[in-house]
């Protein structure tokens, strides 16, 4: 009998579960449909709004319609996007016009209100917009969230700090060094906002005081500094640093700003026991190698590391191009047909492909 009771209890439980879940399914279906209808309506409205306000921010329309409460967030994000695009353009007038419109539409006040939100997305939107508007109400929160929030919030806060207070560059660079979760390309765009002399000094100081890992991270962003400063910092590390990874990073950083005089500084590194250092040195030699480097480059074209071979072959072909000669194959041994093939490949890669 105990089984019979258990069975009845089981059936009762399944009945209740089926009916309850059936109800949940019905409610969920209604909710999904209602949500979709609402989203469709919002999307239609948003499309019109974006069209209208894009024209206003770009100065294609002179009127400034009243902004309804529910539309402010959309316009705030639109301003943020348009203003972000204008950052890379040289048009100061366009930027100032967009800022002026945002202030007249009271986007700044709305954004400042969002600073008290606990939602990361709201904080990101607010800090980004207030930073672009130069609104000092964001200075405190930007400093607070710079190293405290998630990846996107902390990076946006750091960017707002850079825009709002030029003396924050040193602190932001320290954050760049420590926050390896910040996407490098976004950091690069952010650092380009800083004033160059200030950035040069701060980067030099940060690199000199950082451990090896931090130096390697920061050397990636040396490209944001002025060429003389980048050259000076990279040359210093190439001369004094002993950690091969840092040396390789410094040579890579130097490659973008190297001068002909750097070839003497770099040439010894072609014989480094570390393949990363050899590889980095070859980057520069590709641009500055002279005919007397050909034997070394020829031996590197037969290196154990495949990437060193490839880059050495490219450097030899580039040397041929500069010298208007074609003797690179002679520098590699007959016994290494793959090195010769690498030169053939480098030639095919570096020279334009004939269109038949």
């Amino acid at each position, binding site marked *: 009998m105990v089984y019979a009771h258990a069975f009845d209890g089981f059936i009762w439980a399944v009945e209740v579960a089926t009916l309850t879940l059936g109800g949940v399914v019905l409610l969920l279906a209604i909710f999904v449909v209602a949500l979709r209808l609402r989203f469709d309506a919002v999307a239609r409205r948003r499309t019109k709004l974006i069209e209208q306000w894009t024209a206003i921010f770009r100065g294609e329309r002179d009127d400034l319609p009243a902004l309804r409460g529910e539309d402010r967030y959309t316009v705030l994000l639109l301003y943020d996007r348009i203003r972000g695009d204008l950052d890379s353009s040289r048009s100061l007038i366009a930027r100032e016009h967009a800022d002026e419109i945002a202030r007249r539409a009271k986007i700044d006040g709305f954004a400042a209100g969002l600073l008290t939100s606990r939602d990361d997305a709201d904080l990101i939107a607010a800090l980004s917009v207030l930073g672009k508007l130069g609104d000092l109400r964001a200075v405190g929160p930007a400093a607070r969230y710079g190293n405290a929030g998630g990846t996107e919030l902390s990076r946006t806060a750091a960017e707002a700090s850079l825009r709002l207070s030029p003396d924050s560059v040193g602190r932001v660079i320290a954050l760049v060094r420590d926050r390896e979760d910040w996407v490098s390309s976004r950091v690069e765009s952010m650092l380009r906002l800083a004033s160059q002399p200030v950035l040069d000094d701060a980067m030099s100081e940060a690199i000199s005081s950082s451990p090896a890992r931090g130096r390697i991270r920061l050397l990636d962003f040396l490209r944001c500094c002025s060429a003389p400063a980048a050259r000076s910092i990279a040359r210093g590390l190439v001369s004094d640093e002993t950690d091969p990874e840092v040396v390789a990073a410094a040579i890579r950083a130097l490659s973008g700003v190297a001068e002909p005089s750097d070839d003497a500084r770099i040439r010894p590194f072609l014989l480094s026991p570390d393949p990363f250092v050899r590889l980095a040195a070859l980057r520069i030699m590709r641009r500055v190698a002279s005919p007397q480097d050909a034997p070394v480059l020829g031996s590197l074209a037969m290196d154990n590391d495949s990437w060193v071979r490839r880059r050495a072959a490219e450097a030899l072909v580039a040397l041929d191009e500069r010298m208007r000669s074609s003797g690179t194959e002679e520098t590699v041994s007959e016994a290494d047909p*793959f090195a010769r*093939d690498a030169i053939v490949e480098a030639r095919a890669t570096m020279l334009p492909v004939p269109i038949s």
Partner: protein
Amino acid sequence: MSRTLHYPWDLIVFVIEVALFSYFIFVNAFYLFTAFVALFRLPDFVKIHRVDPLRSTGSALDKPISIVIPAFNEEVHIERTVNSLLAIEYAASEIVVVNDGSTDGTLAVLTEAFALEPFPAVYRVAVPTKEIHAIYRSATHPNLMVVDKVNGGKGDALNAGVNVARFPLIFSGDADSFYHPSTLIWMSEPFEKNPLTIAVGGAIAVGNDAIPETPDGKIEPQLPKGWLPRFQALEYLRAFLGSRMGWAPINGLGTISGACGLWRRDIIVEAGGYRTDTIWEDLEMTLRAHNMMRKQKRPYNIAFAPYPVCWTSVPSTFGELYRQRKSWHRHLAECMVIHRNLLFGGGVIGWLTMPYLMFAEFLAPAAVLFGLLFAVVALYFHFINIYANLLLLGLVVVLSILISLLSILLDQLSYRTYRSSLWPLLSASVLDFFFRQFIFVANLSGLFAWLFRRPFHGRKGSPPGINVAAYRPEPYRRALPAASIKTAGR
């Protein structure tokens, strides 16, 4: 409704009923668990990226990516696929299409469309492959290379692509799929944010019908018109948003789809490359990566990017679908045997993912078959109550609809993948239960085919996803010769 139970037969019946019911609860608990994890994670993820969108900056600091596309008899789709890849906005990428011994005009189409020229590429043989005839480079798009090789199956083609690829990240895609211009920006983000990331999977949507573009270049995919692709569209939502989005935050992702996966090249090479003795390669590669990293006690992360970046063509007839699912289940069976050591081997992969794959996926057809046979026998001998069985069937149907609706809800709260009306998707979620019975039959057939080691043959003109070379099971092997350097055609 109550019945009189007599020892011992009724006790046995009762125990079997409880076991089957427990199994049913176990399987659905997994589905609901991942769907609810996704429900908590996805809206926040979407909101953050709405205010802080990832956009191409053209920076030289972006991690360079090699896109590898294996192609076998893809003359119909290949041009469109490559064009969509060329339109990808990313600073440093190269495209390597591997023509895996196609017998149709795939190579001719590529040569014609992209002005291919022979290219003397030198590449490193990090993983062994079938012979490469030649390598070509596009005269119009220098970052497009085509490798022409002897047919060796998809895994072999991917390995050839890995050898020729120059960059540290490998994006593996399908020749019959269409990719969003922001695919690489979105999918490379986890590598930037977490240095422990070894692979990232992307979400796939069904793109059987036209993918119209708006005048501003935005892609607005429509829900497929046929019922069968529509069911699969719903199934993909369940699989990617409802399931993988739930597994990824706990580092329990079991599959990086072969149509949309971004891998660290060194991990693929270290693992010995893609296997060529299994029907498919994606699940096996993912499990092997888990296995390798766990054995070596190295911390790692396998992430998921929920953006619908890849639109693929799915089978549109029952025959094609049957063959596809049969082969998928067979691959699952192969992987469960190869990586059985992962089961209960610790970590999320050992305690959650593998038990899910083993019991809720691999053994599901056997469990369902046993349940059906039990029901028939029990009904014949009047051991069980018809009402109780119908009730349980009702519960199964309701749960199935609930899980489908949760996936549709997730999609609505995130990317609203399909811009057409919601009604076809909702009606599909109601009828999906019957579709799943068909899939059960295909899976069961795959299970038997694996058990009896029947040869598997892809066929010319077969649907996307099963264009593989003739397959005969071989003893599992794993031997990696020392790396060497080769030139194409040498």
